[in-house]
């Protein structure tokens, strides 16, 4: 049930899909409620799988006593209704789903990523506030840039611009420190 996010009163029909702010009848907060047909769509009940009645029928890989109804799109195993997981119009088994998530084979299951380009750039830039720190952080930034150059970055930005910027800044810092120490020695 959708309700006002201030007072938790169920939203009145008169406020729905007006595309402008309308007052909640209970708390008078100004609300805009965009509701879509999915709200009223019945969620199909889950199936537990049919019991295998004849030996000639194919059985599920994970439940030998249940009838196979579909084949996994990734590994080809036979699956019953219980094991079948539908994802993006593909049918997968639980094992392939888990592998797809942990090994990043199924992109739409990826829920976290470490963006080494951002980390390298942060390490190159932030220590410049206390300049002497850069003597330590510049080599670290360079290392991260070279080590993780081929690692996938953010899924929304596919450029290497941050890596390039981190490399240039860290290199300039190292060159600067080299000149500094050289001038001290000479």
């Amino acid at each position, binding site marked *: *049930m*959708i309700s*006002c*996010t*201030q*007072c*938790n009163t*169920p*939203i009145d*029909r008169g406020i*729905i*899909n007006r*595309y402008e*702010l309308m007052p909640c009848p209970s708390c008078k*907060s*100004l*609300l*805009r*409620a*965009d*509701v*879509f*047909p*999915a*709200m*009223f*769509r*019945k*969620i199909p009940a889950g199936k537990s799988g049919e019991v295998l009645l004849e030996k000639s029928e194919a059985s599920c890989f994970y439940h030998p006593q249940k009838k196979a109804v579909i084949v996994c799109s990734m590994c080809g195993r036979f699956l019953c209704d219980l094991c079948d997981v539908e994802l993006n119009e593909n049918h997968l088994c639980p094992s392939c789903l888990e592998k797809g998530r942990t090994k990043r084979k199924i992109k*739409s299951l*990826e*829920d*976290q*990523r*470490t*963006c*080494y*380009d*951002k*980390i390298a750039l*942060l390490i190159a830039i932030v220590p410049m506030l206390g300049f002497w720190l850069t003597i330590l952080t510049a080599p670290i930034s360079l290392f991260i840039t070279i080590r993780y150059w081929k690692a996938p970055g*953010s*899924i*929304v930005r*596919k450029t290497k611009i941050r890596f390039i910027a981190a490399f240039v800044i860290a290199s300039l810092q190292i060159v600067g420190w080299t000149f500094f120490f050289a001038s001290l020695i000479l």
Partner: protein
Amino acid sequence: MPNAPKEYTRLPGKKKNFLIGYYSLWLGTDHLLYIFSRFGIEDYKRFYFKDIQAVITRKTATGKIQNLILFIFCIIFSLMALYWKGWSVFNWSMAGLMAILFVINWLRGPTCVSHLHTAVQTEKLHSLYRLKTAKKVMNRLRLLVEQAQGKLARENIGEMGVKAPTVEISPIRREMTHLSTGQEGMKVHKILFALLILDGLVTYLGLFYNQVTITLFGTIISMAACILVIIALVRQHGSNLKSSLCMITWAALGYLCINMFTGYIFYFVVIFRNPKMSQNQWELINAMSQISPWDSSMMMGIFIFSICSALIIGLPGLIISRRG
């Protein structure tokens, strides 16, 4: 070589989290991507257009409260610059900064909070923090979702009602959800903000009456507020309290820390000036309460800061916590 088509398009709106990280919203071909990014680590949540049930946007008073606080700080720093000659450059700079922030906040328009509903979750979209941004995004998103699901006719809403078929939540879990948003969580906040207002009033009295009872009373109130602010912060952590209330509670902590710090500095200054009294606490407190803020511009500045901060934080905090 032609460029690969962009998989995601950024939607307007970006909101910094309180301490670290920021939220952003991106549009994919068949889904909405919600990203929380901090220190190079990105967390993703996908909402497929065919699964989005509703998006509720509600206007909030957070923007107005921010404007009020910025405006009052601007006035305070201006007054301090006029009456406290030693630090006038700093005070005028701060007053100017507060004025600029006030104008920027006012131009950005009113604030709002948006929630996206699916069959299995309700997600707060932090990046849709300004009403203008939320309207732009919703007008765009609505068309895409209607392309995926079709349009909802008004007569269908009447027939089916707005009780959506959702995943059945167990009664225990429902009860736990109710408790985490309950009024019980705000009792401590109400007492805290009431004490802050009282502290402001007692400090105001202290401007005109230099008496040991007022000093002692003010100290007890401050110490009680310090204890209550810690309890309030612990209670609000992980709860479903409004973000404006949480923000004001953190501001109360900041103010109380500054208050304690200036109190300690003042205490040591009095000891250095009267070393003979350092053995006798009662005489020390008496000496502290006898010092009039009218004799020292620095003391006057501290008093004005305390009064204004206590009232600025206490009044809106009490109003928001009473609204529930």
